[in-house]
């Protein structure tokens, strides 16, 4: 099962995990990203590149499936306006054993952060600013090239 979705509405991680559980794999791993309230940020607005976003998710899932023996992978990313504490992203993987599920999950979120066309705008006290890409994100993505 390979599922990628881009949506403005919230998602339920439990529902997504149940889909992976139902595959009968021995291991299910997941990551859920939430809006942090750093520096008084009260909401985010997420812009994306319709079409390319879905293509980049599909390419990432294919790359993960080529590298690990996955029975399933789900990527869900929200767009539009999100308040502090809201869920932004879900990545879930199912495999026979924990190492493949955990590593594939980390690979997907690390690559998503550097290759999927999303841009975050933070709102603080009625003023907006674009979030800068973090160097650490590029390092996290690049570490998967080494082994």
């Amino acid at each position, binding site marked *: 099962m390979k599922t990628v979705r881009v949506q403005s509405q919230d998602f339920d991680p439990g529902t997504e995990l149940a889909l992976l559980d139902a595959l009968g794999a021995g291991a299910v791993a997941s990551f859920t990203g939430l809006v942090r309230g750093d520096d008084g940020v009260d909401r985010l607005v997420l*812009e994306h590149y319709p079409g*390319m976003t879905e293509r980049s998710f599909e390419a990432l899932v294919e790359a993960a499936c080529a590298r690990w023996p996955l029975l399933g992978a789900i990527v869900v990313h929200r767009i539009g306006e999100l308040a502090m504490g809201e869920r932004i992203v879900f990545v879930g993987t199912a495999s026979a054993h924990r190492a493949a599920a955990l590593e594939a999950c980390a690979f997907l979120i690390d690559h998503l952060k550097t290759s999927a066309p999303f841009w975050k705008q933070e709102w603080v006290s009625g003023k907006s600013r674009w979030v800068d890409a973090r160097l650490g994100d590029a390092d996290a993505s690049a570490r998967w090239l080494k082994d």
Partner: protein
Amino acid sequence: MQLSILYFAQFRQIIGVSSEVIDLPPDMVTASDLVRWLSNRSHRHQAAFMDLGRVRVAVDQTMADFEQDISGASEIAFFPPVTGG
């Protein structure tokens, strides 16, 4: 040949439009040729492309580098480094 140019995030704001359709001059080979040509269109374009280290390019919805051949492409997008997740 007609080519759609898309701008996202800061690029959309600085240039003032989210997309434009251009007739690609025949001597344009790479994405950096296109950047030089677009920079001459207006002060807004020039400002957006001032620091190429901050510019990312996608050719037909796939991440590319500036030396990529763009002949035959139908959609080229410019945007800052991505910040999803």
